[in-house]
């Protein structure tokens, strides 16, 4: 099935970086030549409380704004979204569209038979993997969970490669830093900080890449084709 638009909803808990992930995904998609828009849930968030963000990616200009009520993709950042109902919508997959995709960060299968029957009736595919474990193993911190989720999203939907993902990550963590302190005038303190920052970015990219490869493999096994036409193909049409 070839789509013209992907609407993504990311239920997470505060502090996991779902808002950052949405911005990076949108930036990467923008870099890959698509139209993209990202936004957080509009409210007061706090650590461990439900937090949500959204991305829209398409081959045509995007007008739609706000919460994604009818998503094509749902990315569950934390098991508590499912087990403790830390979600703005109940059940967490409410509104999921036919032929959709759910990515869940969990070591175990958290879906009930009822959940599975419903999702199967809509031909929704579920990719269950431990993004947090990836983050701990590769980046050495669970803070990189969002990077693994980003990698998994692009690995399955195949709408942007690692080059665009790297661009998105760098744009988020590097741009402002460089803009405010000319490289020539960096003193040693800033340089040390800068080095640390580069290391951090590299770890983030590596985490995203590992998850990208795993998810891409899974997508191929499932026979999932790229979710959107390539921007060049769109231009030809």
């Amino acid at each position: 099935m070839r789509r013209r638009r992907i609407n993504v909803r990311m239920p997470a808990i505060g502090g996991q970086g779902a808002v950052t992930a949405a911005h990076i995904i949108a930036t990467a998609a923008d870099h890959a030549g698509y139209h993209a828009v990202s936004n957080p849930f509009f409210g007061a968030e706090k650590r461990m409380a439900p937090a949500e963000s959204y991305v829209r990616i398409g081959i045509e200009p995007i007008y739609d704004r706000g919460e994604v009520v009818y998503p094509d993709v749902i990315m569950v950042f934390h098991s508590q979204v499912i087990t403790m109902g830390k979600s703005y919508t109940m059940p967490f997959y409410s509104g999921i569209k036919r032929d959709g995709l759910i990515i869940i960060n969990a070591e175990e299968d958290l879906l009930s038979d009822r959940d599975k029957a419903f999702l199967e009736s809509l031909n929704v595919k579920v990719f269950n993997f431990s993004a947090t474990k990836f983050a701990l193993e590769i980046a050495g911190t669970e803070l990189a969970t969002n990077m693994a989720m980003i990698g998994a999203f692009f690995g399955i939907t195949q709408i942007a490669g690692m080059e665009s993902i790297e661009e998105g990550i760098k744009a988020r963590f590097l741009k402002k830093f460089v803009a405010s302190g000319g490289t020539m005038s960096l003193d040693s303190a800033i340089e040390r900080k800068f080095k640390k920052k580069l290391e951090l970015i590299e770890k983030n990219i590596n985490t995203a890449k590992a998850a990208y490869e795993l998810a891409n493999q899974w997508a191929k096994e499932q026979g999932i084709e790229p979710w959107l036409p390539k921007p060049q193909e769109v231009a030809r049409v």
Partner: protein
Amino acid sequence: MQKTEQVQYNRAGQRVVSPEYMLFEAPRTKHFMTGSEVVKEAVKRSSVDASVSYPITPQSEAAHMIGELWVEGYVGVYFRGESEFGVMSEIAGCAMAGARTITTTSGPGTLRAMENFPMWAGSRLPIQLVLMARGINSPLSIQPDNLEVSFLLDTGCMIWHAETAQELFDMIIAGFVVAEQPDVHVPIVTVVDGFFISHTREAVMLPPDDIALPPYNPYKAPMPPIDMEMSPGRFLRDPYVMKSNYISYATHASWQFEVRAAIERSRPYAKHLLRGLIEEFGDPEGDLVFVASGTAAAQAKEATQILIHEEGVKARVVRLKTLRPFPTQELIQAVQGAKYIFVPEFNVVGWLEREVRRALYGHVDIPVIGSPRVAGGMTMPPEFIVKEILQFLGKEVKHVV
């Protein structure tokens, strides 16, 4: 605008260019940013003299970033007021002293500051207020809802409603230019729906940041800067009302008319710099017409595409860019041939429906339906609009799972 052959630079060292060059000709590059960041970019290119701020969600970031511009030398004066009432009073003082001014607020802050807006208009101060709408208590809401726009409609300020971060950028720059025309010279409120614009990150095309608008020339104001003692104003001391005679009534009434006439005189300038007061979108033959502004128009556009491509319903959108002046003639013209007019809105009272009814009454005989309408910060998914339309038309709804 001043005509000169010499290259001029403003206080921040930016090259001064004409508004037309800034808005239409300067090469633009793509940036990926939020609506709040866009406010900073627009102010940076507008030779702003003074800004006063006060935090309130969702405009706090924009206000904060104007402060960064002051640190960087792009804004002459910047400070925090003691409340929104303080902010709007202090910014008036700055404007009376001949400064180009901008401030920002949201929701309840707008209402706290309310007394000042008609005062700005009556004093003919071309202050720019960026309103990131968030609705009004009670119960408390910080989310997108634009009820406060309803309260501002008759304050004597121009009111424009941007749909995207891109349009907000262009409107802020154009806003200064239109508001400062000697025959206009009234405040300008540039509205965006909070969060939908302020917190959403999207692609924006920006001209270079080493160019800026010509500085404000207060000596072109219809009333002398600072001195508010002259006729016909006499606002500060010994106003006409103290005389309690027919002159006071006549002065007040004629000046109120004059402020509104000034808004009317802004039409050609706004039309030029905004490329029209309305935008038409969708199937030109569409007999189902959405009339909307801001984010409601964005959602209607998305719904229109679904209706056209997937449901075979001929639909179109007439988007109003300005609310004051209200584009009455443009609207009457644009809805010709319509069978139904829907007015989707993000507020409980339906202020735009009221405006549309008033504008069309006696000119066209088309039913105006104030729907769909959401409030309190709720999202209006295009699928929801489509469902509403299909149900109205008696068609099968298969879109929403």
